């Protein structure tokens, strides 16, 4: 009773021959996929499709010849379960890739890196300057008094800072010129609360009070 007699199980469990067929086919698919990548017989999406086809073929071969799916006693609940799982996997994997690609498309990678770099003050990524400042340079001051800006022109280097000081009782809303607007777009300065901006973009910038356009000035940021 303890030794299991060979039973009429050939269909449900497979034979040496079926394992050999499965093994040889798997070898062929693996090596073909490997060679097509190493030799670069095609490139890009076509190559990706090729290796995916080899993987799926090998999946089918192993599920049939090694796991013997579909050859057990009927009804085949395990086959149903298998295909249910496969569809869930397709939804999860393809759905994730689709959604995340869409997200990447809408938030283009370079912009995200640039924004992150500026927020975190990372001056270089991958050897390229990001426009963010790791070390802050000279501080320049612009004073607004009686609706007049002094000095009206400031020349600064990249990564210098510019402080707006308001000596008037009312608040001044400084906007930067329409054509060459600066990051931040608008700075609101109240009396005895100066505002400082970091000059992390080279260029020539005009600014003015949003209420009285005569209160105007400009600054140049040399790269």
């Amino acid at each position, binding site marked *: 009773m*303890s*030794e*299991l*007699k*060979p*039973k009429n*199980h050939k269909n449900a*469990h*497979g*034979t*040496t021959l079926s*394992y050999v067929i*499965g*093994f040889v086919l*798997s*070898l062929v698919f*693996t090596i073909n*996929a*490997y060679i097509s*990548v*190493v030799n670069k017989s095609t*490139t*890009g999406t076509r*190559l*990706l499709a090729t*290796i*995916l086809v*080899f*993987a799926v073929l*090998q*999946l089918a071969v*192993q*599920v049939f010849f*090694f*796991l013997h799916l579909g050859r*057990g*006693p009927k009804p085949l*609940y*395990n086959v149903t*379960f*298998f295909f*249910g*799982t496969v569809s*869930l*996997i397709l939804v*999860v*994997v393809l*759905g*994730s*890739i689709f959604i*995340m690609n869409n997200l990447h498309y809408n938030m283009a990678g370079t912009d995200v890196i640039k924004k992150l770099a500026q927020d975190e003050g990372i001056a270089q*990524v*991958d050897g390229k300057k990001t426009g963010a400042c790791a070390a802050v340079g000279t501080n320049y001051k612009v004073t607004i008094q009686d609706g007049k800006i002094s000095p009206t022109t400031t020349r600064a280097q990249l990564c210098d800072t510019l402080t707006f000081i308001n000596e008037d009782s009312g608040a001044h809303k400084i906007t930067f010129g329409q054509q060459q607007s600066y990051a931040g777009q608008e700075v609101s300065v109240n009396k005895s609360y100066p505002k400082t901006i970091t000059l992390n973009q080279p260029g020539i910038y005009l600014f003015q009070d949003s209420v009285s356009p005569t209160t105007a000035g400009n600054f140049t940021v040399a790269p």
Partner: protein
Amino acid sequence: MVEHSSESHEEAANERVMFGFWVYLMTDLLMFAVLFAVYAVLHDNTVGGPTGRDLFSLPLALAETLILLTSSFTCGLAMIAARAGHKKQVLNWFGLTFILGLSFLGLELKEFTEFIHAGHTISTNAFFSSFFTLVGTHGLHITSGLLWMAITLIYVMKRGLTTHMVRKLTLLSLFWHFLDIVWIFIFTLVYLRAFV
């Protein structure tokens, strides 16, 4: 008549156990699917660091694939021997499967240690987090499969190939074939994909 009914009873129990284990394998597959999705989404996020293309060794990945595939094959041959009641063959084929599994694990650990020594740990960037999680989870499955195999083989040596033991070996072989199938996709989507 009595013998027939006990045998069909045994058969029904077998089917129940097999189906239960199949359900486990499928849910485990779902977990791997999520880890694959995470890797697919994050594998480009290296924050300027080296990518898979710079670091992966294709010959090493191929060697791992062939070793695991062969171990899946020898595992199948072991099951044929088990159903035929050849204890010695079972021990030999499963022994070979065990050694192949162990060498696979050795190669994987070698790769991991090289990465970590070069300063690429699981917390380096999103690419390495998802890589180590996906491939490491598979490695943990292989490790537990090897432990399971060692323990079952000791039982086979002590108690012989009982019906109960053959059922256990069947589940083990299902698990082992399953891990090979998961590896095919790691080989394709992680290693080969990096060089496309």
